[in-house]
């Protein structure tokens, strides 16, 4: 009975986090990006250019921004497909500045733009003249479409810097105060990075903003892959040099971490989760986010604990205050903040599994909140079970080696 109680409490917490009513967010994507691309292809009129294949997507203004580019890369076609059926599909053509075209007169540009009111503004290019007519644009002699909503700007630079500082402090503390190395977690991080590098060609749609008119798409994809592969290699090397500590994590603590993450994800979803859920290799991407992110969050948690350590007994009170401040101000960083706080509270032995499960819960919760198509929801539920199994396996591997 005493063994059953924590399991039941953990299960109850999970169920409560999963079904607790939260404000329904309007940005929940009604369809997958591939379906949205099919809608756009049917709705946009023939443009007289080769579209190429779908290269990437991102969420913008309650819809999908999707980009097509032919292999020669001389132009890009953007489309915005709203989630609501009543809104029209917007599109935008962009061409490399050197692409030859016409030099239309002001009157001709107005005609091509469809008689839009407004004073046309010329834009001299290397081999043609473009015109801006209100929100319309004319490229050479080609109508370039309607304006597509821009994706939200990057925010939380301060948060990113603070997290980087904590990771840095954690790395230093693991060098100065070495841990008993958890070989299971070290291997897990290394293998996750390796598998993710192999799967990178399937993740290039996340690089939607990297595609540029005049740059061939394979070059943009290689650049994206190279940058991500370098970052993954750096993380796996860092995991060897600053390894996770070995320890036994309590079941109720892990269940609480998972439940807290799940609730946080449902409360503060980020649109990026829907973009990842649209990938064919979403399972690998989720694994990378959770396992590598969890290890990094544990490192940051250790840094936070060491920074608070000089306060002695007051450090717990300080941690509570800092934790409250982080939770209140984190916004879209709530999942990361909770993972760091969980790792800080869990200590060296429990930090990594606690942070991983928090992130796992957050990712699943955020996917539920941002995606409304079946494939993503089904896979995220499956991945939740796989994630719990992986964490248990890693803990058991450590347990077998002795804690």
């Amino acid at each position, binding site marked *: 009975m005493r063994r059953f109680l924590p399991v039941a409490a953990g299960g109850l917490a999970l169920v409560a986090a999963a079904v607790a009513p939260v404000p329904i967010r309007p940005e929940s994507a009604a369809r997958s990006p591939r379906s949205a691309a099919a809608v756009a292809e049917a709705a946009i009129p023939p443009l007289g250019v080769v579209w190429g294949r779908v290269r990437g997507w991102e969420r913008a203004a309650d819809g999908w921004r999707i980009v097509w580019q032919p292999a020669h890369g001389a132009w890009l076609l953007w489309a915005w497909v709203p989630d609501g059926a009543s809104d029209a599909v917007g599109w935008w053509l962009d061409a490399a500045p*050197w*692409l030859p075209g016409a030099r239309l007169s002001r009157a001709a540009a107005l005609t091509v733009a469809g008689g839009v009111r407004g004073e046309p503004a010329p834009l001299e290019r290397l081999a043609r003249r473009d015109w801006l007519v209100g929100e319309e644009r004319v490229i050479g002699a080609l109508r370039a479409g309607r304006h597509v909503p821009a994706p939200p700007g990057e925010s939380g630079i301060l948060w990113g810097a603070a997290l980087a500082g904590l990771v840095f402090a954690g790395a230093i503390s693991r*060098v100065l105060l070495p841990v008993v190395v958890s070989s299971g977690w070290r291997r897990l991080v290394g293998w996750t990075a390796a598998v993710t590098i192999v799967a990178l060609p399937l993740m290039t749609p996340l690089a939607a903003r990297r595609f540029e008119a005049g740059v061939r798409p394979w070059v943009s994809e290689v650049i994206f892959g190279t940058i991500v592969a370098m*970052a993954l290699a750096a993380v796996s090397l860092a995991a060897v040099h600053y390894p996770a500590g070995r320890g036994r994590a309590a079941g109720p603590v892990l269940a609480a971490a998972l439940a807290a993450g799940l609730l946080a994800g449902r409360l503060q979803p980020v649109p990026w989760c829907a973009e990842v859920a649209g990938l064919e290799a979403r399972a690998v991407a989720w694994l990378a986010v959770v396992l590598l992110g969890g290890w990094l969050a544990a490192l940051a948690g250790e840094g936070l604990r060491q920074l608070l350590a000089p306060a002695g007994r007051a450090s717990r009170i300080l941690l509570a205050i800092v934790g409250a401040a982080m939770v209140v101000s984190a916004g879209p960083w709530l999942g990361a903040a909770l993972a760091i706080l969980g790792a800080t509270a869990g200590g060296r032995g429990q930090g990594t599994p606690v942070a991983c499960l928090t992130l796992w819960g957050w990712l699943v919760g955020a996917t539920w909140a941002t995606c409304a198509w079946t494939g993503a929801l089904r896979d995220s539920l499956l991945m939740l079970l796989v994630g719990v199994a992986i964490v248990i396996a890693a803990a058991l591997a450590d347990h077998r080696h002795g804690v």
Partner: protein
Amino acid sequence: MFRQGWWTRWLAAGVIALAAVALALGRGVGGAARAETLARGALRQLGYVAAGDPTVQLEGNHALAWALERSRPGPAGTDLAQGEGGALRWRVTFAGGGEAVVAVDGVLLSVRRPAPTNPGPDLYPTAAKELFDRTLAAVVQQPSAWRWEHSQTWREAGHTWHRARYLDAGNIVPSGWRRELEMELAGSTPITVRHRVHPLGTDLGVVMGRIAELKELRLAGLVGVAILAVGMLLAGVEAMAYHEPLRVARGVLVGALAAGCGWLAGEPAEVLAVQGLVTAGVVALLPTWAFLPRSRPAWGAPAGIALAAIALVGPMLVNGFGGWMPSTPALPDDLSPAHLLGAAWFPALAEEPLLRGAFPGLLGPVLGWWGAAIAGACLGALFHPLPSVPLVAAIGVELVIQLGLVAVARVAGVGGAVVARATLGSIVYRLAYPAGVAWDAVAFGVVALGALLILLRRERE
């Protein structure tokens, strides 16, 4: 290996000096004196005698030059870029008035004389056309290559002006390009002859596209360097915590030198600050990586000359195998000798310690020295390639050079690689600057330093 006597050292120093002379002497952009003579002659043909010493400036557009090279394979493309294409040219400006632009191969591209107060009697269009044709025959080298297109007439400042436009009829430029010539006359005095080349085909698109792609690829290299910088920061803190030997003063000195060279090369202030700091950090940390090969700068100059030869042969090889790589170097913004000095030494001081020192230092324990150095070479190959078809050809040539520098670093350490890279840069970049003693002195200064290092090298068993 063997004991080196003085005669061996003198021989080695002499050989590298001769090799450097063979690779770089007379390879700057010439033709300034010829341009001045042609400019005076052309102005005389317009009825104006230019007085005084002119200002002669090299100018150009390397994207246009590369597109012209791309339009015609082999030396014909290079000749077109430096001649009729007008991508590399001398601008001759006389203080008393009058200006001419002459291609570096000696083709007159444009000439303009000051408008006289009394330009002679106004002409009817038919008479103006005769004068245009006479002027064309007098000023342009191949008048038959031009076909009359149209003319226009207007009144300005009490005189009748005529403007005539001729189109290329001699197929001087390849299909997809357009060449036109414009002449103006006031009253009965020819004022200007102007020559233009318009790229309308895909050649310029290929070049501009490759330039944009390489710019993006460089970004990936910079991200790699940023990741490495974070690793160095952590290594620095560890080294301080464990009281490992650091050479802070040397690091600051080399970092300041790198920033100074970057300033001469016209790099932006933020680049100077970041590169200076990173270089200072690497140089300060070098002693903590005791497994790195010891620096022997004396090996640098001969290795740099060998690598310069590879860099100069690279485009020929690519073109020989059916690809395309430009032989005209990228034209710098500033053409002063100081800029050449900075352009040669800045990459050497900023990149070599990082790629040949920090990379093997940080990654060596995991990948081994060679593995880490080759990873550094792959990253370094992204920084300076020229556009090519296929794109990987130029990156391949850069990679060969980087692997050469890896070999130098294995034998002669980071110091050897720095001197080799500076020597390589001095010889290769020299080609983009005007011919002249000051630029030659800067280019051969590194070689002379290398020769001196060989002569002063301490005898070791």
